[in-house]
């Protein structure tokens, strides 16, 4: 089919393309500055159409959502994950394949949603989605008496895990929490630091025995300098 792809701009802005043409047009949009320049106004026009049909949702929807989201992991790590930069790119093609299916399955939609901030967030969100969506994902968590929790999702099939820390009490001035991957043979390897909330992806968990969290000076330590506040078996 040799449709002139430029002519799909208006149907695209109105969401009037089927899946195949939508994908083909988005690939074209990546390449075509003319289409991108005009698309912004088209999309904004469509949004105006969309915002004219407001209708108050049932109150139960709000309650349901607010009750649910606390348990739903978010896509992007807030912490600086040191290990991520080192280990992730190597394994990305495999992860990306799996995530492409996942993204399709949950129907993530919207060119802007998908492409905004793409380079920055994509590697992480792809890997994170892969772990959280893996068939063999398992979870383990630890709650603290002082409040907050640390939850670990591991997916052996992706050889990766995601750790999510929520509302931990302040580690103290000039201190951070540091996450370590520990195996029985070698030294603990730092996975990154966070202060109160954080999400990070860890690669190579197949060799890991457990994940530990310690309190360390700002910037993190090369090796743990304190006893762990949490140990979670992988």
């Amino acid at each position, binding site marked *: 089919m040799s449709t002139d792809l430029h002519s799909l701009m208006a149907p695209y802005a109105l969401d009037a393309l089927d899946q195949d043409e939508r994908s083909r047009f988005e690939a074209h949009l990546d390449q075509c500055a003319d289409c991108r320049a005009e698309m912004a106004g088209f999309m904004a026009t469509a949004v105006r159409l969309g*915002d004219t049909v407001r209708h108050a949702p049932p109150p139960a929807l709000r309650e349901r959502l607010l009750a649910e989201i606390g348990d739903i992991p978010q896509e992007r790590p807030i912490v600086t994950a040191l290990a991520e930069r080192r280990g992730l790119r190597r394994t990305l093609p495999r992860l990306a394949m799996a995530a492409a299916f996942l993204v399709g399955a949950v129907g993530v939609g919207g060119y802007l949603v998908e492409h905004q901030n793409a380079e920055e967030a994509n590697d992480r969100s792809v890997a994170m989605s892969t772990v959280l969506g893996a068939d063999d994902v398992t979870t383990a968590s630890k709650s603290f008496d002082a409040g907050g929790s640390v939850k670990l999702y591991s997916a052996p099939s992706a050889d990766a895990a995601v750790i999510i820390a929520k509302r931990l009490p302040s580690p103290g001035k000039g201190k951070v929490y540091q996450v370590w991957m520990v195996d029985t043979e070698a030294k603990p390897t730092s996975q990154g630091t966070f202060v109160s909330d954080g999400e990070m992806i860890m690669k190579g968990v197949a060799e890991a025995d457990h994940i530990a969290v310690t309190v360390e000076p700002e910037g993190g330590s090369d090796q743990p300098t304190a006893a762990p506040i949490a140990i979670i078996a992988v």
Partner: protein
Amino acid sequence: MSASAAQLKLAAAPEHDAEPSLNDLLVKVGRGDETAFAAIYDHLGSSVFGLARRVIRDPARAEEVAQEVFIQVWQSAARFDPAKGNAKSWLLTLAHRRAVDAVRHDQAATNRENKYDWSSGPDFDEVEETVTITLEHEQVKRCLDGLTELQREAVNLAYYQGYTYAEVATALNANTATIKTRMRDGIVRLRDCMGVVA
């Protein structure tokens, strides 16, 4: 997904003074702020649900889709970049895409049951009337009224009913090239009439 594609900018609707604070809220949602999420919901819940309901028609199904939209907002908010668009556009673009995908998915299932019978499709006159009555914004209504009949029908069927342009062509008994052109002319005219600056 190239870097250049990430540069796509959405025009901010000029009359929306609340936009900067919605942007801030959505950024906070991306950092796991549940209070900000509740505030986003309170601001945009009726826009998202209303749009889903308009496209899907079945209120219960629309509620499901609205729920999926907000869960996705929670999961993906960190991808939102306030430098490249505004929060309301981000949510409504997402909501519309999901609503259209849902209505097509449901329609495909129905069609499989019904052995695919196009003649049982919705009646167009009834559709247009509903759209017109529920339009809240006078300006948008006036701008839609300023389109030619074929432009307006093409935009309505696609945007508010989730038809593909090929389905619009079938429904309106026109060829696809004509429909694509009418959609383009229609959007350009709406854009200019609404004063969208991009």
